[in-house]
């Protein structure tokens, strides 16, 4: 049933139409990937639903509902609440600094009654929404105007700094990458981009000397030479590579991964779960999984390109790239190509807040798709 163009352009879409318009192929892909994730959690627990797989499945069902609801909400509503959402997320981040409890040696969690929240996760969504909203009002020329460029840079810099002092290097990188990617897509001039690369390259030694924590430096050093300390800090990298490599072409088979089952893999249910997948399903399974991820990303790009509003396009690409950055950093780090930074594999690694944030993001992507015909003027404040 094709949408009536005029009504769609103004957002007059019935609930039934919205359900019909949801990209169910993408939803199916996401469900399959998350199903693989649950199966992996079942595997690394030694073939048990406890302690991770069952909880993750329940969280996925919850996340699935959120995704559908978010997809049904008019894109202009998200435009409207983008700044408040960002403000609340920023406040939560501040809160975790002030009264957060120690967890894994870093302040990342906030206790809200019975709930434990990682405010850095909603911030990844909030930064996309808020930047998309801001950049929606900017022409290509505006984006590169120094004064107008300052605003998005502050919007990126504040949460990035707050997350960085937690300290949480991985999320800092994701937030910064998300923000920069959106600036790039909004048309930031190459005259800004190329010199910035130069400055960043020059800043690396300074950051090494003054900014990075010892444990972060240790990760880099052991990455560069894991065999130097094969039983100590290099253990993770060495064992992860052994797990992936020993999977060979066809893998050892489901539940047959010895590296994780015998606890040679560190953080096997979170950051390093990909290595267990690689061990059990081998090269064939990994490539199949990469193809699934690739199709999801392709859907994201296609949705972004087909959206009529700049806000929708930026949100869609923001969510898609956010998903990609997760896969990229996690994949590169567990296979020993970059130092270990705490980034999970999206949809697969265990972790409730991260899963919900990713599902929320896909909800936004679907919302962009459902409301792709909605036209939002550049100067619109977003109020319907």
């Amino acid at each position: 049933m094709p949408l009536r163009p005029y009504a769609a352009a103004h957002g007059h879409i019935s609930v039934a139409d919205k359900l019909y318009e949801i990209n169910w192929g993408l939803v199916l892909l996401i469900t399959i990937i998350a199903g693989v994730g649950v199966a992996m959690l079942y595997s690394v627990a030694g073939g048990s639903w406890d302690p991770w797989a069952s909880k993750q499945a329940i969280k996925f069902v919850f996340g699935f509902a959120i995704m559908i609801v978010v997809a049904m909400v008019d894109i202009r509503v998200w435009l409207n609440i983008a700044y408040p959402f960002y403000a609340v997320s920023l406040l939560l981040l501040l809160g975790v600094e002030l009264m957060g409890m120690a967890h894994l040696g870093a302040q990342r969690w906030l206790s809200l009654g019975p709930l434990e929240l990682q405010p850095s996760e909603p911030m990844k969504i909030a930064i996309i929404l808020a930047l998309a909203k801001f950049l929606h009002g900017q022409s290509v020329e505006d984006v590169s105007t120094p004064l107008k460029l300052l605003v998005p840079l502050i919007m990126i810099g504040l949460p990035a700094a707050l997350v960085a002092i937690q300290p949480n290097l991985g999320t800092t990188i994701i937030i910064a990458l998300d923000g920069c990617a959106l600036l790039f897509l909004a048309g930031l001039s190459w005259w800004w981009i190329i010199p910035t690369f130069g400055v960043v390259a020059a800043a690396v030694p300074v950051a090494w000397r003054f900014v990075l924590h010892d444990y972060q430096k240790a990760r880099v050093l052991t990455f560069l030479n894991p065999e130097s300390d094969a039983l100590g800090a290099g253990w993770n990298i060495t064992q992860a590579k052994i797990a992936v490599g020993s999977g060979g072409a066809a893998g050892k088979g489901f539940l047959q991964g010895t590296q994780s089952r015998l606890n040679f893999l560190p953080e096997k249910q979170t950051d390093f779960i990909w290595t267990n997948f690689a061990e059990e399903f081998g090269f064939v399974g990994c490539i199949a999984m990469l193809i699934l991820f690739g199709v999801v990303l392709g859907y994201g790009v296609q949705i972004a390109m087909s959206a009529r509003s700049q806000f929708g396009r930026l949100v869609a690409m923001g969510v898609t790239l956010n998903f990609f950055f997760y896969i990229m950093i996690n994949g590169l780090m567990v296979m020993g190509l970059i130092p270990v930074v705490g980034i999970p594999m999206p949809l697969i690694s265990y972790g409730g807040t991260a899963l919900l944030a990713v599902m929320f993001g896909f909800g936004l992507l679907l919302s962009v798709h459902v409301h792709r015909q909605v036209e939002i003027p550049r100067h619109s404040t977003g109020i319907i």
Partner: protein
Amino acid sequence: MPLFDRKDKSRYASFTRRTLMLSGAMSGIFAVLGGRLYDLQILNGKEYMVDAENNRISQRFVFPPRGRILDRFGTELATNRRNYRAVIVSEQASQGVETAIDSVGKIIQLDSDRKAKVLHDISVNKKFAQVPIAENLSWEEFARINMHLPYLPGVQTDVGETRAYPYGAEMSHLLGYVAAANQKDVEKDNDPLLAQPGFRLGKGGIEKQFDAEMRGQAGASRVEVNAYGRVIRELSAVPSAAGKDVWLTIDCQLQRYAEERLADESAACVVMDVETGDVLALVSTPGYDPNLFNVGITNNVWQDLLHNDHKPLINKVLRGAYPPGSTFKTAMALAAMENGLADLQVHCSGSMTLGNHEFHCWAWKKGGHGGVDLHRGIAVSCDIFFYEVARRLGIDKMEAAARALGLGEPTGIEMPGEVGGCMPGAAWKLARFGVPWQPGDSLSAGIGQGYVLATPLQLCQMVARIASGKTVTPRLVHQVGSVLQPRVLPEDLPFSQESLDAVRQGMTAVCEPGGTGFAWRITQPGFEMAGKTGTAQVRVITKAERQSGVKTDSQLTWNLRDNGLFVGFAPVGNPRYACACIVEHNAAPHPQVAATRDILLFAQQRDPARKPTAYPIRAAENPPPREG
């Protein structure tokens, strides 16, 4: 203001362009991920597979049970018992190893030395290795730890095997002990068992001599382990082959009796069967508790053992070479009989002069022994008589007789570290000191002083040969596993029956009225013993000491007093048991004679040589090769 303008169009074009660029970049990264997977899984998959298997599979040695040591009647002298242990794996001690050890210390007794040793062991071992906290726990202690195990992260319990010596110090010098292999052992022996923590190696006595036989063959077990080294399951196993049992000729009861009899002295004693050479008791006191060496002896105890002036770590029976003193006169009497001096009569006035040196008889204060023949010479141990014998025989004939009795060379007993003593000769002295033999040297040697040195074992062999008239040699091991130990069958001594009888009669007279051992004779009819006393001077009492009131040996400090010796056999008419005994630096007169009397009496009453043995193979079923 229009809803949409040209600026919108340009930014849409820019967005599309840049989205396509980013898509290309994403594809590039995916290509990198795929390429890395290809590199790890396809190109290097086999190597990583090997690494994963090495991670997962651990080859563990299965210690073979060590062979037992048994006496002639099947009594277990060294055996294995269950060893209840508490161990710690530092990697799993989530609250720190010190906390874990302290917690164990609240459940069982752990002194600070032990704690320090455990911490040291942890520091030198791998994080996933099991380091013993306490071994040989009682069942009750073991059960208590097991009960608390859930609250002791990192602590595990297991049951191994440990060597046990039920008779402790009573058998220490005979059996030796077992201890962890040291660097030298590992270099000498390429058995991979030696490098295993917890493996124990024979370190002395029978344990050392027959270590290879008793050790057995290691088994192997391929187990799957997790990252903490915990065994998940066994994949395959090659069982170990148990070590062989060693059957000794020792009689446990006699050994224990002899040890108890001499426990307070620094002494050595051997009892032999004069017909077969079977060693029935082999005692060196003081001993040590070999059980202490299993776990690792504490430094305090070790230093005590090392610096004790009674030398508890030295097996005096075969490592102590003493001047045999007057016990040597038995050999000299035989030499005299064999060389035409059977009718020699000597007048002992207490001293004699050779060249410009005056030689004294021990009875010089009483004015000597008067007229002495060979029989009386032995009975009263007249020095002057044997000086005269030595003067007339010369060292060559003396040496020949002594060597025929086995002096001057190791007996070849199946024990490590035996020394051969010293039976000097003219050529020996010239080679050793570059000085020609002097007639005075012969005189000193004639009474078992001077250069003559013999071990208690050699003296026992000597008296057994005199008693039996055959070249018996001490034999300690009857069979190892199912193999009968070869031995040399004794032949007749190169002495006439008449000579041997004369010497035996002289030795019998020692324990008769007027003899030097009369006070310590065996009075039970039928069990009488014959023998020869001996006193070997460690040091001459000086004139200054004499003036300051030191007149007798017992007034000197312990380690300067004379050694008391005795060799004997019993019963006199039909000798079966020979015994040599030395008590170092004795204070009381002749404690060694009293001890020998008791031991020989006990041996005869118990009569282990005639009791049926419990050996799995009888000597008769498997006659040993005869030499020559």
